[in-house]
């Protein structure tokens, strides 16, 4: 493996490193023998959040946008659960305790409510316009 101090000395001093080298030991370790930490859950949450944002912006089907919202909420939930788990934190490190799980439970309930209302609006839009393409929802354009 390349010596990191050499890589850092190439760059002029004062310039922040373009890549965070702190993440290299995580990928260098054997993932099958190392215990899982909070950072692993944060990576999964970031991937789900990013996929949800991309889904919300990219899809033209109204139901696809709803699915993107569900993915975003799940990415947030993964972070809440990771920070509330004493299994994933180092010995004695502060956790959110049960509060993180309660917040995640509320997020699940509110996501169910949001999906019901958004689906009703989508069906209403489909009845009125005979399409679910959100680009056609331009009735309010002047």
């Amino acid at each position, binding site marked *: 493996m390349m010596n990191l101090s050499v890589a850092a000395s190439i760059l002029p001093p004062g310039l922040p490193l373009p890549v*965070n080298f*702190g993440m290299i030991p995580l990928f260098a370790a054997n993932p*099958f023998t*190392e*215990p*899982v*930490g*909070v*950072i*692993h859950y944060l990576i*999964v949450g*970031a*991937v*789900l959040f990013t*996929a949800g*944002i991309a889904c919300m*912006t*990219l*899809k033209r*089907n109204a*139901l696809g946008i709803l*699915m*993107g919202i*569900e*993915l975003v909420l*799940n990415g947030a*939930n*993964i972070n809440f*659960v990771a920070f509330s*788990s*004493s*299994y*994933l934190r180092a*010995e*004695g*490190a*502060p956790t959110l*305790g*049960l509060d993180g799980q*309660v917040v*995640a*439970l509320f997020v*699940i*309930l*509110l*996501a*169910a*409510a949001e*999906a*019901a*209302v958004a*689906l009703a*609006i989508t*069906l*209403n839009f489909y009845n*009125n*316009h*005979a*399409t*679910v393409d959100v680009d056609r929802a331009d009735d309010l354009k002047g």
Partner: protein
Amino acid sequence: MTGMLDMDISSMTHVIVPALATTALPALPMAGINWHSVLFLLFAGLACGFAVGVVAADNVVRMALYLVFSLGATAGLFFLAGAEFLGAMQLMIYVGGTLVLLVFGVMLTAQAPFVSIKPSSSDRTLAAVAGASLLALLLTAAFSVDAWMAPGAGVVPAPTATPLGMALVGVRVDTPPSGSPSGGHVGYMLPFEIVSVHLLVVLVGAAYLARAKRRRTPRAIDAVASAMPVEPTVVATAAVTAPGRTTGGAKSALVGGGR
């Protein structure tokens, strides 16, 4: 060449077999494997892979299927983090309720031209660039805190179902986490009540929004009666022919839309 190989193998067998017979089995390489990490990698790969699949798929039915798998794998991640009640709720409410609702929505609107609405390739490229930069930003933020990089100590948490239920009715029975900055123990009675009333209002509102609207057309018998005073026999024949016309009008209102 093959003869040499055969000789090598046979000589190796002669060496190995007595060794196996005399000594105990060597430590298997599987002994050092942390099965919690292996299961985490499995569920994390499933969750991330199917989440990317939701973005990449164009068919809305496949998107719904991938979303089911992704959220199910997320429930597995919850179980692995020690939040077993939350994992069960994720499976029952999300996968069993919300996604079934979404699948119903897909089925109700799955006319042939809307099953796959493809975004343009320039939009795709733009979304890929924006998504990659957002992911880089989030990962840089996640890796910037040293305390989050530490591997877990593996302190098995207590079962959470009873403390969660008691916290929702306002009584905390769990021990506060050590070193908690707030140190406080608050119940969740008021948020629980607000959320329950909110859920009721939302379901009533959704049922009101999604009901099948009928166009408010005057009944044929009223139109005939208001147009001219007629004999009772003519009104009776109009009433006989009325039902077919009204159902036809309602169907056209449902299919054709209000425009």
